[in-house]
């Protein structure tokens, strides 16, 4: 296994080199074009079109009797176009909704394609060997001629996206505005649809029609959370598509009897799941971390507030765990964690089991109490809530209110001195 991997990645064999370069290009082309499919929320349409080009490919073969890439491309393009027009036609001229139209076109076209494929196989013309690789893909099954042809098509697709980048973005973001500018939106959409069908047609060489949508959409979906710039999103998607292509040709080379599509899809899915988990800000891990930080914030702020309130009610500056517990029922583990953190942050000092607030801790505690009481004033004055209802909400809001909102509250409420329970609102002089 290791040996074959080494053999493959050394790229000494010219055939390996060509096939790999070709599939990598297919992966990049599909990912680049698919970025716009993804942003225009046409992922499902992309899936339907992928399935729908099968009868086009089969018919092209039946009519010409040979597996010539150009004929296959023309057949696929026509079938793809007819399927797109049919979806639009059904939506515009019948009572059926978009999802129904997509499902209908996908299954009808694909079913017809399978029918034709079976007919071809029963004729047993011999050259049809390899036509079934259109279902699940076979990167190494491509002839050198096909690799060159589809490689160049992919390169052309990438070129078109670069050339039309600005208008593609404009139409994808705000179609009506583009029309109002007088831009030829229909023409631009025609180009977008055409390059999508072309990307699908080239991509199926590696992945097959059944799983083609993954090569089109997954790279873009995986790339989106990592950046907010469209240019970078496309570059990242292209890189993921390239890895998909590389894996596809590797598997195809080492296990010639295995379809490559599923392998490519598995690899792309690893990227998608990874992005779902680890993307900055949007990822699951980031949001768990944020929740954890909030918990920590609430824990320490509640302790600081308790200390401040104890001082307020005349406690001497040194406070034990027991006094703290008598004031508010903390969970002992939470309390221990919070006290430890506050000591580290220099908000508390500790001397033989007695805690005292430092200057910094005092200010912090004062701030929390101030926010709590300000919010209570806001609730009674602005939302007309009864005094016995306001406390629980203020318990939460005191941890959320930012300095800007605090300033706004103070301004809007005219620097109130007392809260609705008649406690002083402590300000920093």
């Amino acid at each position: 296994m290791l040996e074959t991997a080494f053999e493959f990645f050394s790229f000494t064999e010219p055939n390996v080199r060509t096939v790999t370069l070709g599939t990598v290009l297919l992966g990049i082309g599909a990912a680049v074009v698919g970025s716009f499919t993804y942003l225009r929320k046409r992922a499902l349409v992309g899936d339907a079109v992928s399935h729908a080009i099968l009868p086009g490919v089969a018919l092209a073969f039946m009519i010409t009797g040979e597996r010539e890439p150009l004929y296959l491309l023309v057949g696929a393009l026509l079938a793809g176009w007819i399927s797109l027009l049919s979806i639009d036609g059904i939506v515009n001229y019948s009572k059926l909704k978009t999802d129904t139209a997509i499902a209908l076109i996908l299954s009808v076209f694909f079913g017809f394609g399978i029918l034709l494929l079976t007919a071809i196989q029963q004729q047993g013309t011999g050259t049809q060997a390899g036509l079934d690789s259109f279902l699940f893909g076979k990167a190494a099954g491509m002839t050198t001629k096909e690799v060159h042809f589809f490689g160049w098509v992919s390169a052309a697709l990438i070129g078109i996206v670069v050339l039309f980048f600005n208008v593609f973005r404009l139409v994808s973001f705000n179609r009506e505005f583009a029309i109002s500018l007088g831009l030829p939106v229909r023409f631009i959409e025609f180009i977008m649809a055409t390059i999508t069908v072309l990307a699908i047609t080239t991509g199926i060489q590696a992945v097959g029609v059944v799983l083609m949508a993954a090569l089109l959409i997954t790279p873009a979906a995986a790339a989106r959370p990592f950046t907010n710039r469209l240019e970078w999103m496309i570059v990242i998607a292209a890189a993921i598509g390239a890895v998909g292509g590389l894996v596809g040709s590797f598997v195809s080379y080492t296990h010639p009897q295995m379809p490559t599509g599923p392998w490519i899809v598995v690899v792309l899915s690893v990227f998608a799941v990874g992005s779902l988990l680890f993307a900055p800000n949007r990822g699951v891990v980031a949001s768990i971390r944020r929740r954890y930080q909030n918990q920590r914030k609430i824990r320490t702020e509640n302790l600081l507030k308790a200390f401040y309130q104890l001082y307020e009610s005349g406690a001497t500056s040194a406070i034990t765990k027991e006094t703290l517990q008598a004031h508010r029922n903390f969970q002992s583990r939470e309390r221990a964690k919070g006290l430890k953190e506050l000591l580290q942050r220099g908000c508390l000092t500790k001397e033989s089991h007695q805690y005292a607030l430092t200057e910094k801790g005092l200010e912090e505690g004062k701030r929390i109490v101030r926010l709590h009481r300000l919010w209570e004033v806001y609730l009674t004055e602005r939302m007309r809530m009864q005094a016995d209802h306001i406390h629980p909400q203020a318990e939460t809001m005191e941890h959320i209110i930012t300095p800007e909102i605090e300033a706004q509250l103070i301004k809007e409420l005219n620097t109130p001195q007392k809260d609705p329970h008649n406690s002083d609102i402590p300000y920093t002089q």
Partner: protein
Amino acid sequence: MSEQENTSIEVHNLTVSYHRKPVLWDIDFQLPKGKLIGIVGPNGSGKTTMLKTIMGLMKPDSGYVDIFGQPLDKVRERVSYVPQRESVDWDFPADVMDVVLMGRYRKDNIFKRISKEDKKIATEALQRVNMLEFAHRQISQLSGGQQQRVFIARSLAQQADLYLMDEPFVGVDAATEESILRLLSDMRENGKTVIIVHHDLQTAYEYFDHIVLLNTRLVACGPKEKVFTKELLQEAYGGKLTVLSKIGDLIAKEVFPVREPEYKEDKKL
């Protein structure tokens, strides 16, 4: 100035259908130049449809619209359109500057590259709506009021003479509303015409000079003092004309044409 020269938009005999059902019936009006004009009416009265038809986004069943005495296509560069804020996905990967620069595109120039001059114009536009500090902020991180100001900045970057805005005051905080209003009256001082779809009757009288009162048919069009009478407002807001809407339903259901073909022939006379 003659009446012709002083007209920004002329709407003639306009009937427009949505899903085959007419939502605007034979609308006919002329709007002056250099004014703030409100298109006002209850929910579902066809205000947005009116604006979209003027902008060529919807095809009328009958009638036509002239802008500065010409069809829209001849004067596109003098007209700017601000769609409803909710009509786009604000999670799109773009920053504020990207969106404002979209106002610099012109028809027949699909390979346009952004120039320094375009950037300068976009920067000035952002300054005018007080959003310059947000130029490189992600649009997904903007508040509703900020999104609206980005759309208005994009419109300003078009440097047009006529501005059509669809509900620019919806979901906007009081401070933004005030600053948009100040900007609009500045634009009027500079001789621009601004037409605004607005659903709030309370503020309409205060904001606009001229008002189009709409409820699937034209109720009134003129200076606000003349339009804001008790009778006309009651007519516009006192519910739909039941016979008219029954006819509309019938047209949609029975696949009747809204106009007979012969009638369409002489529309441009």
